[in-house]
Structures are given as C-alpha cells and as structure tokens.
C-alpha cells in the first residue's frame, strides 16, 4: 500500500525559479527521505529528515517536515536544467519495519 504521495505529479518551471514539491503520508514515521531519479536511471538519495527534525538543508535543497500534518516539502532553489528529474519521497513502512515505501514521484522539468 502507498505510504507517501507526492504533489504535484508534474511541475514545469523556468530555470532560476524555485521548485517546491510536497509529500503526504498516512502513518507515523521514524524518518522521511527524498530521492531523485534521472530518466531511465536508478534513484539517488538526496536528504533524510528524522521525525524529531522540522527542517533540513543540503546545498540548494531545503526539506521541511510537519509530523502533525503528516507532510513534507522539498524546495529546490535557483533551479538548473540539470535538476530536471523525478523526485520521490520515501518513508519507513508502518510498524517500524526496516524498509522504505516510496511515493509515485513528482516529475520536475526545468525549462531553459
């Protein structure tokens, strides 16, 4: 069953603009992770935020987590053409099982 759901499903912006993607999940979590997937390739781990954290930064990435709303957002600032990819959130499965459950992703297109 799906734990995380991303919104929007697709996003198209101009280079230099900021991109925001959202993720909602259903049950309590230990952590939430974001991954990037370039077309036809494997996923790359971007950032992990623990349930007791509210915000985390990594370069041009900013992730927030609101456990009361069961939601997270990924902000990419000053977007570049190379940021064009699909972005997935993932949460640890219910009952604390040591595996991740992925959402269906947001397809981000950066237009030059």
């Amino acid at each position: 069953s799906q734990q995380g759901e991303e919104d929007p499903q697709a996003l198209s912006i101009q280079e230099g603009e900021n991109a925001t993607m959202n993720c909602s999940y259903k049950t309590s979590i230990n952590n939430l992770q974001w991954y990037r997937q370039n077309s036809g390739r494997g996923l790359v781990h971007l950032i992990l935020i623990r349930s007791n954290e509210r915000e985390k930064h990594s370069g041009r990435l900013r992730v927030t987590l609101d456990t009361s709303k069961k939601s997270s957002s990924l902000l990419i600032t000053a977007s570049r053409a190379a940021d064009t990819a699909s972005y997935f959130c993932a949460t640890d499965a219910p009952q604390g099982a040591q595996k991740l459950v992925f959402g269906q992703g947001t397809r981000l297109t950066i237009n030059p």
Partner: protein
Amino acid sequence: DVKVTQSSRYLVKRTGEKVFLECVQDMDHENMFWYRQDPGLGLRLIYFSYDVKMKEKGDIPEGYSVSREKKERFSLILESASTNQTSMYLCASRTGALTYYGYTFGSGTRLTVV
C-alpha cells in the same frame, strides 16, 4: 562512494524463460532490496534481505525468488518469465539502521519479456 552494480541495463527474454538479475554492492552493506518500477504504480518492493542466506518477502513476491549466498550479492530470479513482469528492476543496499541511512541504488535493469 558506495557502488551498487546491476549486471545488465537492458534485457530481452522470452516468456517461460528463467531469468537471473544480479546485483552486487561493494561496501559491506547488510541490507539489500529489489524493487520494480512501473508507470503509475511507483516503486514496489519484491524481496529484501538483512543478511547472508536470509530473505523476506516484500509487497509483490509472487513469481519471483531471491538468493543471497554472499553478503555482496543479491540475485533476483524470475522462475518462469511472463509478459506482466516487463518492468524496470532496481536493486538497492543500505547499512545500519533505517533511521540514519538512505538507500544506494543501482542503475536499474529494464527487462522486456516477449
């Protein structure tokens, strides 16, 4: 950097064939995973393994089996390939507790069953 290598980028197999997808990681990770990825369905977990010779079913294990004889290698086996197993297969590995570490993925194997 940790490297997860999947033996083939593209495979074409015939219905009924036994298919082996190989995955090797080079950083002594305890945990390894096989997912399949399909449009509109996202990533779905097929099998995972916490240790050598150990395996656990994921969400969609039917039609698949796995083997982990050595720590670095996790093989996915399609016992009798069917057209509905045409998909992108992704292998991943992880060390330590899930709370602290993310997955490292291979580049994927796009399997077509004809």
